[in-house]
């Protein structure tokens, strides 16, 4: 059976800042080589498609992202590393995917892109690529604090049929193995990423839903408040770590 932390044993608690490591460090040499080479990284296929979508006129407004935002290499640098970020109109932090859809609906007068759709993945991959090398830095202030707290509560709450909390694997047992796989610390440093298991690029929320299914819990819906709060918490937990999107993971 998998490694299970008994309630009686002391939990390791939050990972000390200096000990935080990206999932990159837990991968094999070959997988790391795949991520490091832009000509071999399958995630780059989505980045290239995102670039052409960025420049393509769309919606009833017949407007391309580039018309307002010009060269993404300049205007979008660091943006992905600062999301989820607070949106005044919605009164809560929103993810990068949601931010893209806000622009599509409000400014391009186009229908929102479905979560995990090819186009949304391509655009977010392109945007995330512009934050490569930037330290993760989500803004936590009076407005976002309640959502951070809600995300933290989810991270430490036991859930599902297996009654496990995220922290039990990713704070207390990172580096150890579960079913032969090394348990990473769970920092979203490389999303959206190409997961070899998926044979495709996928978002952080896809991965979170997989984890929830893995502990036999009802997964929160894409775009839900719960996943958004958790994403905010995970990015805060990874604050200062270097963004490396689009990553490759096993």
């Amino acid at each position, binding site marked *: 059976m998998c490694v299970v932390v008994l309630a009686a044993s002391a939990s390791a608690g939050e990972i000390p800042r200096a000990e935080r490591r990206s999932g990159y460090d837990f991968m094999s040499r070959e997988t790391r080589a795949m991520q490091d080479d832009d000509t071999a990284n399958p995630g780059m*296929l989505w980045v*290239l*498609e995102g670039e*052409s979508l960025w420049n393509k006129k769309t919606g009833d407004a017949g407007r391309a992202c580039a018309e307002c935002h010009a060269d993404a290499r300049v205007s979008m640098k660091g943006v992905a590393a600062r999301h989820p970020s607070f949106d005044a109109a919605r009164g809560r932090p929103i993810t990068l995917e949601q931010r893209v859809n806000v622009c599509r609906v409000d400014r391009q007068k186009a229908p929102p892109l479905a979560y995990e759709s090819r186009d949304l993945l391509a655009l977010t991959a392109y945007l995330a690529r512009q934050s490569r090398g930037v330290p993760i830095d989500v803004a936590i202030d009076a407005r976002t604090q309640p959502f951070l707290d809600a995300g933290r509560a989810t991270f430490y709450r036991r859930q599902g049929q297996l009654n496990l909390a995220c922290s039990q694997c990713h704070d207390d047992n990172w580096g150890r193995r579960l079913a032969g796989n090394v348990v990473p610390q769970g920092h979203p440093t490389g999303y959206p990423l190409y997961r070899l298991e998926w*044979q495709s690029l996928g978002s952080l929320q896809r991965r979170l839903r997989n984890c929830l299914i893995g502990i036999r819990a009802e997964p929160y819906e894409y775009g839900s408040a719960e996943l958004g709060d958790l994403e905010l918490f995970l990015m805060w937990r990874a604050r200062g770590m270097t963004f490396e999107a689009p990553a490759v993971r096993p």
Partner: protein
Amino acid sequence: MASALINVPARAKRGEIIEIKALISHPMETGYRRTQLGALVPRDIIRLFVCTYNGTEIFRAELHPAIAANPFIVFSTVATESGTLAFHWTGDRGFSETESVAITVD
């Protein structure tokens, strides 16, 4: 889809061995998977990859269902003359992609 990513050195010396990398977007559906309801998902793979150098074929690969999605093929050749490297993928359901890259050989 931005279908293919090719990496060929832009310049090479005559007689030099160069490495060519080709990554193409394709689901490579094996034909052995089943849906949640038990129906077989039909095979949809790239079957053939050919590279020509100024019209002469220098590399050919036959692909089978065991090859993962988004096939990544790396091979080498000798840089003989300036010109065009053309890459052609063909597969099921009439799949056909061609990419060309120029190379300068000194």
